[in-house]
């Protein structure tokens, strides 16, 4: 199941024509855009080279953490930090979608307008 808050890519470079499918954002003249929102790109030449962008540079602009594992080339981009800040400082519960044991997706927001007890547990 895909979850655009947690991304893994086979390499730090994302082709521009794959950017929207991978991250949900597109590079436009006015900046990095998604729906009606655009983030200014201060140094476009540092972001884009030969039709590809560096996942770490994009993540930095979107205030998301990112790392690249040098050995395998796999890049990981984490969730926007503003979501966690919203939880900790504004006490607004960030929404998420995760599958149940049979693979059916559930969102926290499926149960909006109810009181919810959310418990993180584990088998370990």
């Amino acid at each position, binding site marked *: 199941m895909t979850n655009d808050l947690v991304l893994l890519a086979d390499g730090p470079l994302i082709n521009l024509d794959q950017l929207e499918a991978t991250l949900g954002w597109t590079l436009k003249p006015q900046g990095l855009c998604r729906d009606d929102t655009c983030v200014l790109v201060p140094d476009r030449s540092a972001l884009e080279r030969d039709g590809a962008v560096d996942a770490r540079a994009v993540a930095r602009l979107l205030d998301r953490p990112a790392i690249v594992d040098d050995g395998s080339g796999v890049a990981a981009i984490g969730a926007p930090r503003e979501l966690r800040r919203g*939880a900790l400082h504004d006490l607004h519960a960030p929404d998420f979608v995760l599958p149940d044991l049979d693979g059916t997706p559930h969102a926290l927001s499926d149960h909006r307008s109810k009181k919810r007890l959310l418990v*993180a547990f584990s*088998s370990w």
Partner: protein
Amino acid sequence: MIAVAIDENVDNVRAFVDGITYPVLMDPQHLLTELYAISNVPTVLLIDEDDRIVQPNWNAYASDTFKEFTGVESADQLEIIRRWVVDGTPMMTADEAREAVGDLSADEEQARLHFRIATHLRDRGDEEGAARNFDRAAELAPHDWTIRRAMLPLRGGDPFGQTFLDLYAEFNAAGRPYHGVAPKRHL
């Protein structure tokens, strides 16, 4: 009631959910631990009808199964939950709730990404790459159970064995760091 297993293996989780009727979700990539700054389980949050967190990360127990180990009485905690469900009385004020959970450090944030890469590489058979990223995650977040203990079964270790007890001693020596509200211990 929504339960989220910070777990990679559905079969391991099934053993816990027999007869449970509320949603039990799988979070093999530990998204929740990043979104809510969760560093151990169980971590409970109470969220109201308007998506407002009235009780942030709370190390609460619904039974006394682990009481001898944790020193935590479930009865007090169940009463707090019951009161909130019945009449909306929260355990803490909004100002207290805002102060209750420390943000993840940059290292703890990165540890989560290394953990994700490690499980991804493990799934595709790159054991060396997985080990490299698990080790890095452990270095970056040495007292985070969702990193240190969660990786034990993925690396062929026993999450209830001597390695866990050694980690537990380290954790105690470090002052039991927890991102959230730890209950009063009776031990």
